[in-house]
């Protein structure tokens, strides 16, 4: 089974990198771009076959290492 984890900054946390990306896109001729938020995408190959168990384990991974819950949210998608 594969887990796809998205880690994003919480609402209200300033994202200077997202802002810089937005400015660059505006400069490159994409004036329609407003607020930009940058995050991380992490793909995990898992030996687990039980979806519920896998979800629980990946949540633990997110809390312990993959996300800093002071500033970040995470979402988990299981495929396969």
């Amino acid at each position, binding site marked *: 089974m594969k887990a796809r984890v998205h880690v994003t900054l919480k609402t209200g*946390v*300033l994202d200077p990198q997202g802002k810089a990306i937005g400015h660059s896109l505006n400069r490159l001729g994409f004036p329609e771009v407003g607020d930009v938020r940058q995050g991380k995408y992490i793909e995990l190959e898992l030996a687990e076959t039980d979806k519920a168990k896998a979800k629980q384990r990946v949540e633990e991974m997110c809390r*312990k290492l993959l996300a*800093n819950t*002071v*500033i970040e949210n995470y979402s988990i998608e299981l495929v396969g």
Partner: protein
Amino acid sequence: MKAAVLVFPGSNREVDVAQAIELVTARKPVMVWHGDGDFEKTDLIVVPGGFSYGDYLRCGAMAAQSPVMAEVKRRATQGVPVLAICNGFQIVTEAGLLPGTLMRNAHLKFVCRDVHLKVESSQSLFTNRYQQGQVLRIPVAHAEGNYFADADTLKRIEDRGQVAFRYCAPDGTVDGTGNPNGSLANIAGVFNESKTVMGLMPHPENAIESMFGGCDGKPLFEGLVEALS
């Protein structure tokens, strides 16, 4: 005072801080490798600056999970003082020993220069040789020093006097002009609740010799020796 200095793959200020400690104690600190789950008992543990684990995932995130940090957490809970500088500050916040976190500098640039710091509290092991309100000049060198905490945490640390240092102008004014990285409330260093753990982004170990630009960092180490010997 006997000190331990942790060394991670990618640490680069461990020798600087070891020299600062040796200068004030005439005793070499014990250098402890990140894979060591146990090490000699010491009066102080220092988590030095650098780029532990190449800053992968988030600054300090990997180092915070290393065997040595599990032991540091145990000892910190027992009251062993921990001084965490720059990447060390990032590591101990990731390890949950200090509140808040360090984010990418607001201007996105690496900043390497002297800054001014206002001493917020002289009532600690780390700051007893300073006066409250004293202005220090100490260098910073980081790209992720932008202190952030949510509103509740910020209120709590302000109410409990856990802010150790704030970035300020040379005259001590705390405003945007003296803030090198966008830190919330100009926070440059914080304590844990019991003030036995302190983390700061500036490098006091690089301000200990006047011929190298100033010695405002030296009293921090002298104060520790006085408190812990």
